[in-house]
């Protein structure tokens, strides 16, 4: 089974991480990243050049932009493999859906979590955040993005095969991501350091649930 999981991880990473290089594949990391930076860049245009306001709100904006960027790849996570019949082939080979989606969560996180943390640095510079705030934002993203990845895979599995699934997926993720956003962005407030621990806790709950919830959703979508 280890061999099968490695093969899966290699394929998932190639599809999700490097996918953008090949026409017609599943997009890759670059688009959500550019989207994230574009949202971060729009904000100063909208609220004006008040440095104090930007520094105070910038961390929260980075969190909202990260959430929006995490929504972009949702329709590519599960649905194409259902359409291709990949899940049928995996089921025939006796590999449980729980394993498949667990691998996919890892690949999905690797394809957007670390790149997002990198992109948060220029975004933070744009808002003039100080060093401490940047550290808190980065730690919060490190704690929160695995939860976003797990949530994304759950919702992608639930909406796979539905008409308008892509729009529905975005709509479903936003309310479910509120705890992550509240704790993550809340950690930026003075004395809010415990927010990072709570973000991590919310992420762990989502990570623990996701393989089973998404696995069950895939099984029912397949039949």
């Amino acid at each position: 089974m280890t061999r099968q999981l490695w093969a899966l991880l290699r394929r998932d990473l190639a599809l999700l991480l490097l996918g953008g290089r090949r026409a017609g594949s599943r997009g890759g990391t670059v688009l959500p990243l550019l989207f994230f930076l574009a949202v971060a860049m729009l904000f100063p245009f909208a609220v004006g050049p008040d440095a104090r306001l930007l520094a105070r709100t910038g961390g929260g904006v980075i969190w909202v932009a990260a959430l929006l960027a995490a929504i972009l790849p949702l329709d590519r996570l599960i649905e194409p493999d259902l359409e291709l019949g990949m899940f049928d082939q995996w089921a025939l080979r006796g590999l449980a859906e729980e394993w498949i989606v667990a691998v996919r969560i890892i690949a999905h996180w690797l394809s957007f979590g670390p790149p997002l943390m990198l992109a948060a640095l220029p975004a933070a510079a744009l808002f003039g955040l100080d060093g401490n705030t940047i550290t808190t934002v980065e730690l919060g993203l490190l704690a929160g993005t695995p939860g976003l990845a797990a949530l994304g895979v759950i919702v992608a599995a639930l909406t796979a095969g539905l008409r308008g699934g892509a729009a529905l997926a975005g709509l479903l993720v936003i309310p479910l991501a509120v705890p992550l956003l509240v704790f993550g962005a809340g950690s930026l407030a003075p004395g809010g350091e415990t927010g990072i621990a709570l973000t991590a806790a919310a992420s762990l709950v989502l990570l623990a649930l996701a393989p089973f919830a998404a696995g069950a959703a895939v099984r029912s979508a397949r039949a």
Partner: protein
Amino acid sequence: MQPAASPACHLSARDLACRRGDRVLFAGLSLELAGGEALQVAGPNGIGKSSLIRILGGLLDPSAGTVSRSGQAGLVDERPALDQHLPLAQALVFWERFDGRAAAATRQLGLHNLGDVPVRYLSTGQKKRAALARLIAQAAPVWLLDEPLNGLDSDAAALVEQLVAQHCASGGLAVIASHQAITLPGTRRLDLCEFAA
């Protein structure tokens, strides 16, 4: 060429019924297949051939009845299960890694010149042949083929018949759902119309 199938494969179904939505497609269907046997499931469109194949593979729950199977099942249906944007050779490599076995039949299937063509540009028949290459490399003793001749020219169709014959000769079993006639010596035939509800 043909990987040896496990000697003790077996597929049996008892009193199967299949319901899609509120329509019962067939009921009271029983079958029994041992290694070396092939069964052609015939019947017009919409009679439930594909559903039967999926039930036999464990991908769909029957609304009544039981299926018992020993030996891994391999499936070829209308979806190739190969990444559309990848060149064929690389798309097959994924399954080679997954199954731990090289896809050796590409030359026999006439695919050896298509290795660098993206799967999406392959014709229907070429995709079907690629799916057969994946199936052979899986080395599953139980073959479930859903309309394997669709989109194939007469040469390729003859090749499929030959592959199934080889597979059965080496101890495997095959269930072939097709509305087209398949000429295989010793193939049993199951007409789904007899079980239509």
